[in-house]
């Protein structure tokens, strides 16, 4: 491979890495929980990959507290930890769970919903952390 071509490929790679995709998301109405909050504990580590392609693990043993709901599902906030999803930017994120599966993320800093391309089953048990 010629020197010039290597340089072009190198630059293209650098540029590509520097231009991660923006996370697909839309504004959403969040309804805070009114009753007794409940907590879920994750039984097995689950990997979730939003539209940006950056995979995140939902760790086994991590606890998530129900804080409200969206039209898409219930919203769970991590207990004692911070959880983020990323693309071109980094977003603090809560899990949105419907029928036992993670269907996306609620981004509290933007009041937006970022859907997952497909629902991911989340094995959990209920109980206080």
């Amino acid at each position, binding site marked *: 491979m010629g020197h010039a071509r290597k340089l072009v490929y190198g630059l293209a790679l650098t540029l590509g890495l520097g231009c991660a995709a923006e996370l697909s998301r839309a504004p959403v109405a*969040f309804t805070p929980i009114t009753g007794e909050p409940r907590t879920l504990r994750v039984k097995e580590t689950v990997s979730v990959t939003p539209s940006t392609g950056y995979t995140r693990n939902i760790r086994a043993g991590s606890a998530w507290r129900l804080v409200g709901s969206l039209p898409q599902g219930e919203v769970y906030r991590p207990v004692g930890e911070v959880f983020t999803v990323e693309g071109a930017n*980094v977003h603090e994120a809560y899990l949105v769970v419907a029928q036992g599966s993670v269907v996306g993320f609620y981004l*509290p800093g*933007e009041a937006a919903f970022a859907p997952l391309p497909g629902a991911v089953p989340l094995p959990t048990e209920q109980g206080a952390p």
Partner: protein
Amino acid sequence: MKKSMAAAFALLAGCVSGGMKHAELKSSMQALKSEEGRIYFYRTGSIFGVAVQADIYLNGAVVGASQPGGFFYVERPAGKYEAHASTEVSRMVTFTLDPGETKYIRSYVSMGILVGHVNLELVNADEAEKQLESLSYTGPSPVPPAAAAKSADAAPAAQAQ
């Protein structure tokens, strides 16, 4: 030999080492106001990209700079925030701050085309507190009282509890 030693010294000179350590500072910090939270910004003393230092913006206003081996903090009303550093590529972190909550944002340098990029990421409290131990305070001097750090650049609180 002399040249390489001079180069190493010049690199190390970019690291913060003389400021107050976190443990000393913590004992003199005022309690948070009931409607406020605290946001730490820090950068570990990695030698990589030591010359790349950038201003850090919180909701559009400069609150400090990313310096290797340094940390500072601001106290803000609960609400929604976005933070970014002023380098070639601007990568934003969005998050919420609850009353009484402390958030930790670490900056690090990654490779860029012309210069390195300063990136920000949210960090868990346990990890951040350990890393803060060895870092030096780079905020305003004297340590700002909680009241001085308050500003109106936060959006109204509207978040999950």
